[in-house]
């Protein structure tokens, strides 16, 4: 949002002396390439409805490419379609299809290369390799685009929105489906990803690598091959997102690997095989999240220290927490656990006996994965019960000393 004033000044100011150049099959200028060639800085190319069979369109001046009634730009699978190499470019209202496939140069529908202050909005991309590729770009905005891929294999498909060495970008209200990774960030800092919907992608809905100080909020990640992966990054804020139906033998809501100082607040994890899979992650705050009907709500793989799980709701998960060591350095406090069977004699809303979220069965499954075939066997219920009464195997300091008696309700303002 913080870029809006800049654009406002830029484009209203520019409009005073800029002109609009119409491009259509019946016009004087028949192709977009020719339009760009003829245009002066800060002009608007008004692209009328029609089918433009063009690729390798290089925008090398600060221009606005404005589509009227979604003109189709058909790359005919020959290569990259639009490459932006100038600052202050706006792309608005285009329908881009048939991006070429190349394993050496990663053709994209729209590539922003080493420039600033761009705006890409209302673009529809179909039949693509890479969708919107931001390469060493900064201070831009990717807003309200729709990217529908037709990816079949992970190795032969590209990502929907890719950010590479980019800074200060807002990715807002996009819909990404059926590509490899919905949104992919690598070495990109200070990025805001909000109100997007990323679903049915082959691999991850959202994928972070080596990217710090980023925020993603109010997104929906549904039915992706593996979920959302956040790896090797610092200070990421993940708030109010929904992770749903990432269901499969190797799927999860979020995978956290080597993540430090993150905040995971107010998210909903529903019907994932594993809600959050944590590995080597420290000082993470989990607050006000809802874990509903997951196989495992949280799977802690080890080397996780100083994490705190406070005020979360764990509802009807097959396993709440899975832990693979007897050592525990993480805090569980004031969570609501639907499996909690304790009582509250003093009626202060907090259970009088602690809750142990690690079941013996989940401990055994961690040791010997084959034992999962005994899932839902009566024997397992019996030993889980006896372990609950007198814990022997599960870490004895892993407990929620003050479990809530009722679901924790988040105040609307945080």
């Amino acid at each position, binding site marked *: 949002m913080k870029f809006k004033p800049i654009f406002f000044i830029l484009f209203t100011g520019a409009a005073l002396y800029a002109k609009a150049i119409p491009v259509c099959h019946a016009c004087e200028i028949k192709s977009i390439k020719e339009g760009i060639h003829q245009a002066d800085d800060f002009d608007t190319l008004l692209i009328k409805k029609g089918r433009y069979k063009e690729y390798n369109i290089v925008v090398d001046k600060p221009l606005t490419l404005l589509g009227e009634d979604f003109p189709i730009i058909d790359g005919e699978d020959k290569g990259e379609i639009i490459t932006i190499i100038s600052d202050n470019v706006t792309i608005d209202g285009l329908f881009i299809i048939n991006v070429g496939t190349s394993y050496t140069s990663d053709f994209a529908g729209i590539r922003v290369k080493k420039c600033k202050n761009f705006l890409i909005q209302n673009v529809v991309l179909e039949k693509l390799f890479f969708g919107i590729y931001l390469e060493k770009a900064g201070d831009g905005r990717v807003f309200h685009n729709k990217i529908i891929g037709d990816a079949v294999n992970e190795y032969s498909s590209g990502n929907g929105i890719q950010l590479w060495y980019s800074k200060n970008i807002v990715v807002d209200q996009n819909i990404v489906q059926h590509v490899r990774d919905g949104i992919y960030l690598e070495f990109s800092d200070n990025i805001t990803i909000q109100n997007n919907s990323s679903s049915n992608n082959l691999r991850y809905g959202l994928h972070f690598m080596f990217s710090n100080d980023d925020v993603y909020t109010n997104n929906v990640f549904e039915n992706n091959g593996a979920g959302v992966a956040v790896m090797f990054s610092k200070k990421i804020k993940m708030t109010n997102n929904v992770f749903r139906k990432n*269901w*499969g*033998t*190797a*799927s999860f809501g979020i995978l956290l690997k080597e993540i430090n100082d993150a905040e995971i607040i107010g998210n909903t994890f529903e019907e994932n*095989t594993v809600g959050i899979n944590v590995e080597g992650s420290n000082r993470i705050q989990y607050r006000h999240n809802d874990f509903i009907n997951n*196989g*495992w709500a949280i799977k802690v793989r080890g080397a996780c220290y100083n994490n705190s799980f406070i005020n979360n709701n764990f509802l009807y998960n*097959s396993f709440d927490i899975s832990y693979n060591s007897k050592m525990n350095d993480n805090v569980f406090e004031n969570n609501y656990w639907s499996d909690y069977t304790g009582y509250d004699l003093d009626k202060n809303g907090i259970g009088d006996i602690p809750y142990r979220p690690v079941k013996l069965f989940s401990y*055994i499954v961690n*040791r*010997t*994965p*084959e*034992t*999962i*075939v*005994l*899932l*839902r*066997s*009566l*024997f*397992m219920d*019996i*030993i889980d019960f006896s372990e609950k009464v007198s814990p022997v195997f599960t870490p004895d300091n892993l407990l929620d000393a003050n479990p809530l008696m009722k679901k924790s309700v988040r105040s609307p303002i945080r």
Partner: protein
Amino acid sequence: MPLPPLQLNRPMLKILKYSFYDLIRSRWSYVYFLFYLALGFVLLFLNNDLSKAVITLMNVIIVLVPLIGTIFGVMYFYNSKEFTELLLAQPLKRSSIFLGQYLGVAGSLTLSLVLGLGLPFVLYGLFRSEAIWDFSLLLVTGAFLTLIFTGLAFNIALSNENRIKGFGYAVLLWLFLAVIYDGMFLLSLIVFEAYPLDTFSLVASMFNPIDLSRTLILLKLDISALLGYTGAVFKQFFGTNTGLFVSIIMLFLWTLLPIWRLAYISKRKDF
């Protein structure tokens, strides 16, 4: 040993009919039927989702159906002992008498189960739901479990004159197959964790009708995604037609062996 002929002859049908009507009129069948009816309705009332209700029902069926089959079978056998002795004095084939009684008990139990669970599910729109196959599988395995455990119970009762002993063995049998077997299974999985155990666990779950039913149903539900790698191996086996075929054959064997032994022992036993 040649298997005795299992044709449904006239006196056997008559005894089957008698036992069946006797049980249908008895209070216990109604209690059993009403229990399932209530269970089905309550489950669907609390949670309108048919496929979720199938998961919960599975838990009930794999524990309760064998238990009730065992207890009911033993009870019926001992209770109708006088009547059996009266029948034995008649010019009737022994196998007809016992098989008739067995089929009567197992049949009425199966009927209670199928009707008791079927009615609420049908009323809640089973035929329009995708859960119909899972549910049918649930009922089929439930029926098999009834047949198997009633048969085993009849065997125990026939071999033990002493009622207390008979009951004890019957409960022990249930306890073994429902609980202890899994415990031993688990222990062996942990002890031999260094070895590849996929084939072993496949075979081990084949040899216990309760485990077999549990695995069969579990793999049909989407909860099978929790099973991970081992689940994939299982799915590769049970998911194919061969796997389903082999499991059904196993369940048939589990049903036929007790029946065959029942006929065999009853022929030779001195009453």
